[in-house]
């Protein structure tokens, strides 16, 4: 098997996390699916035991049909030069989905979690500050959630210029416009 290095890492993790599903996406890319309760232990071992010192990002995917958020933690190992993407699913309540913070392990996690809180509304218990990050004066719902329709919000919040020049009307009449 050519993914010799990746599989040896997976074996090491498999012993401690039997319930996790490990797959090798391609060279140096490993995907791990595990239950959300186990993530914190997994993160501790990643940093302390297996040498994945770099948490490059926490991203969030909004599975609106399954009613779940998916949090993806990207861990990097400098020596092995391998990326492990730990994926967990948390329920998607309307306004108050919660998860635990890992900012005590990694400092940058504070900002990733703050950003996800602002954009998706997930509250990370134990994180230092959870106020607005980039959208300081934003009072609307978290904008990245699938149930927030930006087009509809923009149309009735902002004013659009009525622009009906003659050339556009002729073009529309001739049916070339895609609308």
């Amino acid at each position, binding site marked *: 098997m050519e993914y010799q290095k990746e599989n040896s890492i997976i074996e090491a993790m498999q012993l401690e996390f039997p319930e996790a599903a490990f797959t090798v996406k391609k060279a140096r890319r490993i995907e791990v699916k595990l239950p959300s309760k186990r993530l914190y232990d997994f993160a501790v071992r990643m940093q302390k035991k297996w040498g994945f010192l770099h948490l490059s990002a926490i991203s969030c995917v909004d599975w609106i049909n399954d009613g779940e958020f998916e949090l993806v933690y990207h861990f990097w190992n400098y020596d092995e030069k391998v990326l492990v993407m730990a994926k967990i699913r948390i329920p998607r309540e309307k306004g108050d989905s919660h998860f635990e913070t890992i900012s005590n392990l990694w400092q940058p996690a504070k900002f990733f979690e703050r950003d996800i809180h602002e954009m998706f509304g997930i509250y990370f218990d134990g994180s230092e500050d959870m106020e607005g990050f980039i*959208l*300081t*004066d*934003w*009072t*609307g719902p978290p*904008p990245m959630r699938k149930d*927030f329709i*930006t*087009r509809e*919000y*923009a*149309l009735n*919040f*902002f*004013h*659009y*210029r009525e*622009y009906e020049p003659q050339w556009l009307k002729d073009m529309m009449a001739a049916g070339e416009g895609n609308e």
Partner: protein
Amino acid sequence: MDEKITQRSVWEKISAKLSKRSLWMLHYCTGCGAIELPPTMTARFDMERFGINPMVTPRQADILLITGYLSVKTLKRVVLTYEQMQAPKYVVGFGSCTINGGMYWNSYSTMKSLDRYIPVETYIAGCMPRPEAIIASFNELINKIDRGEANSWKDYYNNYNFYKENQEHTFEGPIETYNDIKADAALFNIK
């Protein structure tokens, strides 16, 4: 804003002819248009020929260049800077983002048309106009000043309510710029 151009006295004509030759531009680099300005200023297009100089503070500037999209946060700073400028002042909107939202037309956080918040003198179409278009618009502005039609700044003083209402709607509340526009209109008797 196309009210009748009142009959101008000889002195106003002379002063328009003289002050049109010296316009100082405060380029408020909000969006991607700011990168078009260095070539306009330097050797190839050289806008200093028309007496247009880049200036750093709003107190000294006559033209406010809004170069690109404006998120609501930046729009607050733009309104503050506009009120800090000294009349007569002219706003030039760069690119389609200031005209009708541009490619951010359906974004939840960018304003869609600039002239609802501050009176705009000239727009330059294009998703970042080239230096030739910028210089053409400056010439257009110079001619308007010469003809005495560049009076959009008076509109801000005369019907301030229209602008204030839009601003407060978008900012969800008034912003503190320490300028009492109505009192200024009376003090400087801007008709």
